[in-house]
């Protein structure tokens, strides 16, 4: 059986299926505090925290607890907007926490196409303090400020690399409509929205900008291979289905022919019996009335 803390909150982002209800209870931090340090660090990273910045486990636990409350307080529609903008693979019935975990993986600093409520949600998840009446350009400015100098340089470098590779590959930047993953059904079967599934429909330029040259190319190759294998598996499955249907149809035809044949034989036998019986009747009649 899973420990209590793991059953709701510590499941991986999309693999965790049922709604982990976030309840702000006084006992939660105490349960988190019982965790080993490495597990606590991993949990903190999932919540978008940097565990090294916290001197003691108690501080990290408090930060995680704060994060949970923050996620619970966010508007779901705003989170969906961010997921659509970031083109993250999530099922349509993903929980608030799953959405937040996916959003925390988005490192993009291009906010074009993101709604205002989505921008506010993203800013709050990235730890930017914003007032209720902040204008969109101000929020964007503050978000960009949170990115460190070297992180910004690295991102720019990756973007340039992405442009070069994109130009080499000849990929056009077509923006397809965002599609949710199939809805997750029950606990333990949430792998449809696996945390390591590559994001859908992002251009190779964006992937390289976010994950680096090798990471982006590897993700693209993996995605293409997955698509190819899935397509082939679907083809094989449909071929097997067609063959089974054909076998079934032929068996039904054979059954009908066989029954019709048996009935025909039975009919011939009955006709012969009736003819012989009639002959016998005539013979008996002649013998009884004219034979003496």
């Amino acid at each position, binding site marked *: 059986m899973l420990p209590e803390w793991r059953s709701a909150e510590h499941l991986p982002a999309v693999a965790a299926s049922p709604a982990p209800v976030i309840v702000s209870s006084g006992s939660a931090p105490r349960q988190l505090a019982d965790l080993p340090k490495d597990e606590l660090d991993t949990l903190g990273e999932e919540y978008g925290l940097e565990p090294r910045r916290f001197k003691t486990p108690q501080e990290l636990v408090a930060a995680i607890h704060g994060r949970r409350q923050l996620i619970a307080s966010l508007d779901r529609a705003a989170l969906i907007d961010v997921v659509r903008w970031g083109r993250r693979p999530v099922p349509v019935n993903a929980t608030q926490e799953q959405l937040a975990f996916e959003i925390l993986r988005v490192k993009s600093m291009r906010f074009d196409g993101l709604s205002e409520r989505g921008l506010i949600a993203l800013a709050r998840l990235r730890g930017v303090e914003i007032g209720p009446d902040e204008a969109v350009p101000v929020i964007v400015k503050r978000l960009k400020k949170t990115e460190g100098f070297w992180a910004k340089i690295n991102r720019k470098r990756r973007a340039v690399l992405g442009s070069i590779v994109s130009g080499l590959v000849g990929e056009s930047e077509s923006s397809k409509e965002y599609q949710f993953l199939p809805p997750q059904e029950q606990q333990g079967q949430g792998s449809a929205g696996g945390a390591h599934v590559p994001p859908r429909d992002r251009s190779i330029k964006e992937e390289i900008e976010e994950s680096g040259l090798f990471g982006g190319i590897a993700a693209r190759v993996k995605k293409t291979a997955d698509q190819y294998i899935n397509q082939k598996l679907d083809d094989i499955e449909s071929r097997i289905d067609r063959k089974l249907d054909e076998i079934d149809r032929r068996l039904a035809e054979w059954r009908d022919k066989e029954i*019709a044949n048996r009935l025909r034989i039975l009919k011939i036998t009955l006709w012969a019996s009736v003819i012989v019986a009639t002959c016998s009747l005539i013979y008996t009649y002649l013998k009884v009335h004219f034979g003496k």
Partner: protein
Amino acid sequence: MFDLDPFHFFRLTVGWVATIYATVVLVQTLWGWVDYLSGGERYMTVVRRYLVLHALRLRFKTFWGDVLICVLLCWVFVLVWMAHNAIEG
């Protein structure tokens, strides 16, 4: 003196031989199917269920004409038999 009627002799002989032959062949066939379907092979349960499924999917109206003719012929045969008994007394 023993009065041998060739027609009745032929009729009864053919009747007995044909009936015994048909019964033996029918029992043999049925026994073969029962033996095959009661086997303990791995997929025999699937075969059994598949046969039941095919039997349930059978449509009577496909064969109703032949079945009706068979029933009528049986009825005619019984009538002829009764007429035969009535003539003989």
